[in-house]
């Protein structure tokens, strides 16, 4: 039979269950702003009944579990989306940083400087005997070189910035992977690995942070361990309780920029080209592909322009000496060339690495005006005939370079791209702009996707204060009622006691 003691215990179980459920609510409310927190709810279940003959008496209630409401599939989608978003944002920021150097407002900029140089050659054609026109050609050539060099330098600076970013991101990645590995340990050691709610949430929040830094793929095993690999699958970062450390090492073949390695057994794996997403992937892409691509184009345009101007200038004749009437044969207007040069190309006057194969890499840094021409502007070969001051045929040829189709020798091997110099410059500027725009669009789209996924995730897992308040009211009432019940039973017991005395 259900005695007073049993009733008292039933009341007590109600008090305990309500109080425990309220503490879960308190936990939810406390974590309303914790990133990655999934709301928890107390699962109440009826205690086993007490068998008294053929009558079953209930024995109250207890909290059988604290459940977390999360959607693991959504979590993984968010992780992927964050990596893609931060990768695009990093690329966009890097390109945007150099874009202003390529910008041309019609008074400053690469396109304007190239135009101004050709303008000066055109003026030279109208007054080939005029020294001031020659000085102007040199001045414009110098400004054009300076513009090429400063644009190139801005890109170089951005490349070093990206490289420094790589160096500073790697330790952050390592900190996160170590924390995730230790949470893996904590979760898998739990009696029920799926019930370690707070550790699971924390691990997910850390994984989201990790995916912002580096593109990863995440999967779970039977022990609810996270297995984290790079997005390309090239290396494993976390497996069970082990975090594989990332490290950097300078690569002599790539200008001592840092290669990224991941520990794996005895030999670390080089993953430099194998990271797509996240800030690390974005910075590596900027450093090794996007920005050097702009530099190559700049080198090609400047090298091609200098080479072709030289070529024409070398076939003409300078201003004749006023006393002797003798004019010198034209010389190279620009000197320099590839840093690791082995000789001078007799046709273009520029240095080369391998005979017959002009290599434009590093051309801009080496290009200078020929000091002989700076010292004596008469060496600018406006004339096509020796000893004739007023002949302008060579100056006209120089000025016509701006229109000549197929002006830029992009490969440095005689295979010319179509388009005059002005178009080639503007198409490079267009490439920079298009890539900036492209990554900006991708970043915006990814941001939309991330927000949508996070909203969806929050809608399932997020803490709603209204909901918690309503729950709190319900448990408060059940607590009060249970307390009332306990007090009633206690009164009955007292009555019984007093009747006996």
């Amino acid at each position, binding site marked *: 039979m259900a005695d007073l003691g049993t009733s008292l215990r039933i009341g007590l179980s109600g008090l305990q269950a309500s109080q425990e459920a309220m503490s879960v609510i308190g936990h939810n409310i406390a974590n309303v702003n914790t990133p990655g927190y999934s709301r928890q709810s107390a699962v109440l279940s009826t205690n086993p009944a007490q068998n008294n003959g053929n009558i079953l008496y209930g024995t109250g209630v207890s909290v059988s579990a604290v459940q977390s409401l999360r959607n693991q599939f959504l979590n993984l989608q968010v992780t992927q989306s964050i990596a893609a978003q931060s990768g695009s944002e990093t690329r966009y920021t890097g390109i945007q940083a150099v*874009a202003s150097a390529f910008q041309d407002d019609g008074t400053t900029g690469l396109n304007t400087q190239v135009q101004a140089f*050709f303008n000066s050659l055109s003026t030279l*054609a109208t007054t080939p005997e005029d020294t001031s026109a020659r000085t102007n050609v040199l001045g414009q050539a110098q400004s054009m070189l300076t513009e090429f060099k400063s644009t190139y330098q801005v890109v170089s600076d951005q490349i070093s910035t990206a490289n420094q970013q790589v160096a500073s991101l790697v330790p952050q990645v390592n900190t996160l992977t170590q924390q995730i590995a230790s949470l893996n340990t904590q979760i898998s050691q739990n009696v029920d690995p799926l019930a370690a709610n707070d550790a699971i949430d924390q691990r997910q929040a850390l994984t989201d942070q990790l995916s912002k830094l580096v593109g990863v793929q995440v999967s779970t095993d039977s022990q609810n361990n996270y297995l984290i690999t790079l997005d390309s699958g090239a290396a494993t970062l976390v497996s069970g309780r082990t975090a594989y450390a990332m490290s950097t090492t300078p690569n002599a073949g790539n200008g001592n920029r840092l290669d990224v390695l991941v520990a794996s057994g005895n030999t670390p794996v080089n993953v430099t080209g194998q990271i797509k997403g996240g800030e690390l992937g974005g910075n590596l892409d900027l450093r090794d592909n996007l920005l050097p691509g702009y530099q190559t184009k700049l080198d090609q345009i400047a090298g091609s322009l200098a080479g072709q101007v030289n070529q024409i200038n070398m076939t003409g004749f300078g201003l004749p000496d006023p006393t002797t009437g003798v004019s010198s044969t034209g010389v190279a207007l620009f000197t320099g060339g590839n840093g690791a040069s082995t000789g001078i190309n007799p046709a273009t006057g520029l240095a080369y690495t391998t005979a017959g194969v002009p290599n434009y890499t590093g051309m801009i840094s080496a290009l200078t005006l020929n000091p002989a021409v700076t010292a004596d502007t008469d060496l600018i070969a406006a004339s096509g005939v020796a000893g004739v001051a007023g002949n302008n045929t060579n100056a006209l040829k120089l000025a016509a370079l701006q229109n000549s189709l197929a002006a830029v020798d992009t490969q440095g091997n005689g295979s010319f791209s179509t388009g005059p110099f*002005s178009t080639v410059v503007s198409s490079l500027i267009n490439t*920079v702009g298009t890539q*900036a*725009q492209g990554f900006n669009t991708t970043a915006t789209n990814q941001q939309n996707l991330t927000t949508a996924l*996070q909203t969806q995730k929050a809608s399932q897992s997020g803490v709603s204060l209204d909901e918690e*308040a309503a729950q709190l009211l319900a448990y408060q009432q059940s607590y009060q009622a249970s307390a009332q019940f306990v007090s009633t039973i206690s009164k009955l017991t007292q009555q019984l006691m007093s009747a006996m005395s």
Partner: protein
Amino acid sequence: MTMRVPSMMNNAQSLLDLQRIKASYAETAQQLTSGQADPNLGDDPSATSLVLNYQSSISLNKQYMAQADTATSQLQSTSTVLTSMGTDINRLLELGQEGLAGTADASSRVALGSEVDALRSDFIGLGNTEASGKYLFAGTKTTTKPFLDNVPATATNPQSVTYQGDSGTISLDLSPSNSVVTNIPGNSLFFGPGGQGSSTDLLAQTTALRDALASNNTAGLQTAYDNLKTINDRINVAMGDLGGRENGITTLKDGLSAFNSNLTTIQSSVASVDYPTAITQFSQDSVAQQATLSVMAKTNQKSLFDYIA
């Protein structure tokens, strides 16, 4: 189905929206203050590259226009010299006619001869005309004084004039496919097709006329007079040719200038901000920003806790 709206979610979405509106707000503001449709390179790359290509075309056309200006000024200077030459030759022919007239005698012919000599010096001076630092009639040797009078003459050798220029022509480009010759080499203008000392040589024939007048040689006078008439025709033809070239350049230049003003208009339509649109966008953004801010302030004010005593 009613969607659960947890407390954090509201903030996240509204915050993103607010950031977007602020970004758009800032971009429109930049457009309005800079006057450019695409102040940043990534805003509209294809428009940016269009604008650059227009800039290049405009700059190229300006070069052609500058060359056309130089060509015009050279041709005009040449034309002025030719006009003076024409006047001088007409005076020369008058003097020749006077010398050939029956009324003329030896002494009057000597007087006529001295005026012819003055005209001869005038011709040499005209042949050595400089314009903007160049000798107009020296061919391409524009820094060399082209005509040198060989004084004194010997009895056997009539006073000759040496040409120190060359027969090169100077061209300037008026378009990628069109160029114009801006000079007449002095030897072809003064010496004619026969070359120096021949019957077509203006200076030699003037010298002959002068010497014939001085020596009262009527036969020589007649020959020189006839030759000078032919030379006069040639100079007139040359003037007509110059006029033709000048007209051609003017037409081309007008074309270039019209083309450039069209290009500038098109360029500005691409590059410059469309103020009505930008201002409308600006006020829209402004309204949206205010709305978002007030919505954010309202929605996050209340929760059920406010009503539980």
